């Protein structure tokens, strides 16, 4: 770009561009309110058709679950030695997805990355719903789900407490903590917007918002305390978020099953979770933006930034994957060798190459800004990531169980309709919750955007107009 070209830019249009990017365009508060509230009322037949379709999928999945409970785990495709199948793989996948919300809203909040503002709520909601879906699987996969309460630590006349040496206990506690944390985090940040919605709606919605906004008036003291609480949350939830997927990885790593028994599993899982979670978020944002006509708030620069994050997480994932793989390959231990052979050239090869290509191609794609800023290309890339990461979970859980120290007891696994229905149920359930959430609660955090407007201005430095942030937080 030559200097003359820069000079050729008319000053006004340049300023407008920045304002646009930072949502600084001249819009009154109430206009922004309406812009966020209006999509919540847009419920066309397509919306209801989607809701009904998803509900049917969920109902079918619930039937499958009932069938599973009534007849036993044998209706699923799991067997000996593949004791864990799609259920646990999907569980790990959903827990992974849930990591993006914290990444966006806690990490980026702490780092004061202001582009996060319009997407935090979407990310937090995703976390909460993904955890709900993940939380179902420990129940689904229990052989005697009606006895699940034996895992709860409560005083009883049997004097029996749960075994806290079991990673499943850590898992249960950590996921519960993370679920509480992320839900409360979502809720706290939602209160001012609920108050806003309360003031601008009627009928049942107003009643709902009234109750949920707890009497928020927006006084200085309230804002101050809310800020304080959110800061504590941001700090506190990051170790939780790291611990959750580490613990999930320890479910596998504490066993002496070859390829599971790995010290790199915890960071590898966390990075993988961030990778898949961010990709899922990008995916959802593209869809929601289209579905709710939120182009005004969710702009290409958000996708650009998100795409970059996905790219970074993806590269980190490759690094961790490779760091694990090279050591296992080099060690050449018999069972590990068998497992790697199975993946690279055996019955798991199709899955393995699907996994690798679906995880690597998006990394190449996302290098290009064009991909990051074009919604459909971004959608393709991030969907690929999710396919890849789901496959990766299946390979880790199912693939590695197919081979063990006793060749006599090796086995193969393929899911049955019950497992597929239940897995689909959680995807449908997630989509359903998300769809309903987007019509009931302000999808874009209004107050955060308004706050952002306060902080930013466009300044002229020499010939250039640049956005600057005021250090006021």
């Amino acid at each position: 770009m030559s200097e003359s070209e820069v000079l050729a830019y008319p000053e006004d249009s340049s300023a407008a561009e920045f304002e646009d990017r930072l949502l600084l365009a001249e819009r009154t508060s109430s206009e922004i309110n309406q812009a966020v509230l209006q999509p919540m009322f847009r419920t066309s037949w397509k919306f209801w058709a989607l809701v009904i379709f998803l509900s049917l999928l969920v109902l079918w999945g619930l039937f499958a679950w009932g069938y599973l409970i009534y007849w036993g785990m044998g209706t699923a495709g799991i067997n000996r030695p593949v004791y864990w199948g799609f259920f646990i793989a999907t569980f790990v996948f959903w827990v992974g997805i849930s990591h993006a919300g914290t990444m966006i809203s806690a990490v980026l909040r702490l780092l004061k990355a202001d582009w996060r503002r319009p997407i935090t709520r979407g990310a937090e909601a995703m976390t909460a719903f993904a955890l709900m879906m993940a939380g179902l699987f420990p129940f689904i996969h229990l052989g005697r789900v009606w006895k699940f309460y034996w895992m709860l630590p409560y005083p009883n006349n049997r004097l029996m407490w749960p075994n806290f040496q079991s990673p499943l206990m850590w898992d249960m506690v950590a996921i519960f903590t993370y679920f509480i944390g992320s839900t409360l985090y979502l809720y706290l940040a939602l209160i001012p917007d609920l108050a806003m919605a309360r003031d601008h709606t009627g009928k049942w919605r107003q009643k709902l918002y009234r109750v949920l906004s707890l009497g928020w008036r927006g006084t200085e003291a309230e804002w101050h305390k809310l800020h304080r609480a959110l800061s504590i949350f941001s700090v506190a939830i990051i170790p939780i978020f790291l611990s959750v997927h580490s613990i999930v990885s320890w479910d596998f790593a504490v066993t002496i099953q070859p390829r599971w028994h790995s010290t790199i599993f915890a960071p590898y899982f966390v990075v993988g979770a961030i990778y898949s979670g961010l990709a899922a978020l990008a995916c959802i944002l593209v869809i929601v933006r289209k579905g709710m006509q939120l182009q005004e708030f969710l702009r290409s620069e958000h996708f650009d930034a998100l795409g970059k994050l996905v790219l970074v997480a993806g590269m980190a994932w490759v690094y961790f994957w490779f760091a694990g793989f090279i050591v296992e390959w080099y060690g050449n231990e018999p069972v590990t060798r068998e497992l790697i052979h199975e993946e690279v050239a055996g019955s798991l090869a199709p899955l393995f190459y699907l996994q690798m290509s679906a995880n690597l191609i998006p990394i190449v794609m996302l290098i290009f800004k064009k991909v990051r800023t074009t919604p459909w290309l971004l959608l393709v890339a991030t969907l690929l990531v999710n396919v890849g990461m789901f496959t990766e979970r299946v390979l880790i859980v199912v693939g590695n169980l197919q081979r063990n120290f006793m060749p006599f007891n090796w086995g193969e696994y393929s899911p049955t309709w019950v497992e597929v229905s239940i897995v689909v149920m959680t995807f449908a359930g997630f989509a359903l919750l998300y769809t309903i959430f987007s019509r009931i609660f302000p999808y874009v955090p209004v107050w955060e955007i308004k706050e952002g407007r306060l902080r930013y201005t466009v300044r002229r430095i020499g010939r250039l107009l640049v956005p600057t942030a005021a250090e006021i937080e």
Partner: protein
Amino acid sequence: MKRFWLIGLFILVVVGVIAGVILTRVQVYAAPEQPIAYSHQVHVEAGIQCLFCHPSPLKSPLAGIPSVQKCMGCHNVIDTDNPEIQQVASYYESGEPIPWIRVNLQPDFVYFNHQPHLGAGLNCETCHGDVGQMDVTRQTVKMDMGWCLDCHINQSDEKVGRLADCLACHK
């Protein structure tokens, strides 16, 4: 007032739970209706020992329910006019067992053995209560795992390892 209903509902739930607890206890301790109006009290007061009718707890896991033949051993001559006794006699003649309702019951996955308990010096009354004072037999304790453990876990150090072991009762 809405809040009143809320509190009302809460109280209802609490009362329901407490009532449920009490009722289930009552039900555990309630004496079941037996096919024959048999009275332990009458027999014990007549001087019959527990082991006369229930002879096997010293050598077998079960105490044993007396056979109809055993009943008839005495009631061939004693109190033969009593309609209840005549009913026992009719069972005997038809060769049908008397369908007694079990009073003290353990679930399938609990393996209780009378013999070691009596061997350790426990009396029938320790667990079954003073049956000799009961007209209709009923359970006097809720025989759940906590109750078993009350004894089993308070044993000397060399014994507690075995006695508080799950495999002591679950197999």
